[in-house]
């Protein structure tokens, strides 16, 4: 089943499958948010936003509104 990054629970991991939406800032891609890369949800702020992720070794926080545009396969 296709999930988005926003579906991840704390501690869960997934592989990014698609990010080609124009809603995603190029910066996020440059920081390693690319198809094929591994992503782990490290921490959630209260109200589940923003999300603190580990994408391929880079630790970063993004808002949920961005996370819903990144498709993943949970593993």
């Amino acid at each position, binding site marked *: 089943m296709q999930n988005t990054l926003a579906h991840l629970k704390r501690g869960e991991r997934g592989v990014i499958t698609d*990010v*080609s939406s*124009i809603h995603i*800032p*190029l*910066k*996020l*891609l*440059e*920081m*390693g948010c*690319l*198809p094929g890369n591994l992503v782990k949800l*490290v*921490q*959630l*702020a*209260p*109200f589940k*936003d*923003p999300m*603190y992720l580990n994408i*391929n*070794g*880079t*630790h*970063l*926080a*993004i*808002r949920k509104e*961005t996370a819903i545009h990144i498709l993943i396969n949970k593993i």
Partner: protein
Amino acid sequence: MSKQINVALIGNPNTGKTSVFNALTGLNQKVGNYPGITVEKKQGICKLNRGVKAHIIDLPGTYSLNASSLDENVVIELLLNKNDKDFPDIAVVVSDVENLKRNLLLFTQIKDLQIPTILVINMADRMKYKGISLDIEHLEVQLNTKIALISTRKNEGIDYLKQLISNYKDISKNACSNVFDIDKDYFNSLQQAFPNQLLYKLWLVITQDVNFGKTDRNEIDAIADFKTKSKADLKRLQQKETIKRYQFINNVLKKGLTIDTSKAKDLRSKLDRVLTHKIWGYVIFFFILLIIFQAIYDWSSVPMDFIDNTFASLSEWTKNHLPQGAFTDLIAEGIIPGLGGIVIFIPQIAFLFLFISILEESGYMSRVVFLMDNIMKRFGLSGKSVVPLISGTACAIPAIMATRNIESWKERLITILVTPFTTCAARLPVYLIIISLVIPEGRFFGLGYQALTLMLLYLIGFGTAVTSAYFLNKILKIKSKTFFVVEMPNYKLPLFKNVALTVIEKTKSFVFGAGKIILAISIILWFLASYGPGENFNNAENIIKTEYASNHLSEEHLEEKIASYKLEHSFIGIAGRTIEPIISPLGYDWKIGIAIVSSFAAREVFVGTLATIYSVGSDDEATIKNRMAAEVNPILGGPLFNFASGISLLLFYAFAMQCMSTLAIVKRETNSWKWPMWQLAIMSTFAYIVAFIAFQLLK
């Protein structure tokens, strides 16, 4: 003869770029702004061997050459403009060993601009600990460059880096990837249209418009007409370019980098579990705030008193030792107190920057941004607005300068506009004296009324800041990309050298930046209070002596009466009387009016002005307080400073934009007079209305 080469330091944020800069330049550095914009420009000199000097420019941290903030745009503007006097002879890309892959993205882009580029791999001391090993030779061949493996923490490898810089002519200029395969037809036609230009440079110029809006590009203006692709298509191509670059990098690193994850010990995740926890995270943040407040108020009071006394005695000394006359008065009553008014804030500002730079260096600040983003977002602010709002409790000036790393212009502008509402240190003297006059000393559940009032004023300040942010967010129709991507760097022990240099640098820039304005204002105020038109002012001495001839006043008392009479008829006194009809509905007389007008430049002037007006020579608080308590309201009778007028004044000072220096900084940071003027008009009107309502209800 000594020769100078330009070296540009470029790198991702949090790679220790500033440490490398500090290691190379030490105290030989200066900070300014890029012409026309407020992005900080750090440069310094590094002596290389054989009498060669390197002029080192520390460029703002950037993840790539695709700009999304003003800071990042500076990097591209410099690298695209060969005619810039700072155009680098050599680029030094600073990366950190743990995020090498991501850092190499920027490296390959700069390489494609055919600028000689050295790769610095910093934090080499962590390699063993993280189980990382590098094949430097392999990487040098693949990336077609020279690599310096260094550790700024242990001061290793800096000499080798200097050696590489001085031999910059040996570094290859060749590009190391071919990203144009992503759309051969498009790039071929682009090259044919502009055969004399570097293809990657053309591509950058075209795409900057997509990312960042118009950039000033003198050389290749014609490119604007070369539009064969839509913005969406261009963005897709940029995404493809990024993927292509990562493919290249992955290939290079396959052999060049090995990570043995079993060796990695993870301190970060343990700390993060606590510091970003949804309860403990906030508790710890709250305690850190308490410590900062404590430092700003308590610890800095000793040096502040010392500075205050020193300037007071300096002024006294000048009066006694220089020949009498207007010039001496200007120095003793205008310039020295004016300078004192700036210097006295040095301890608070230094403490504030000490803490902020420690929090930033250690990596904690990103966690605060993460914790606060959701709350701030509801008010149209960003998690990154927390830092300015905290700093605002010391002084709005450094706070507004701290908004620079907010990517979204709208969020940044709103932060700049609301920060002056937070209760800064300059309001304290005003608050303290008025509270002691009008609030009784009783207790409520063990808490003093006076202390509660002060706390309430702080809450009102912060509350107004976020509420006005909420409305500004609804009103302002600014289109700006509001994305939020924050890197959470690894925790690090702050380097003393970096913290010290930041504190010195920021304090210096405050003293000289705001100082010039405060000094000018205090000279003007002195002039307006020391001169006046007509008989009343010029013959003050005779008039008072005649009037009080029968009262047998002491010499000192008589002098005070004369000074007070003179002030009443000076230019500023006349101004006070003129505005009396406007301010009397708020419960103030013309004397308070003068104090308000003169404290427009800076709030803390209020107490000093009243001290002069109530003919008290010193600003001994008890004495002014007694005088103020004895004042009678000319219209309504009863004490002038009663509960109603006192509350009205407190609220007026809570909201009014009584700070020239803040206006000047807002002008500089927004690059227009429009915003500071709006800020002045709206805050003052609001302050007036609230004070009016408070007085009319309470009187």
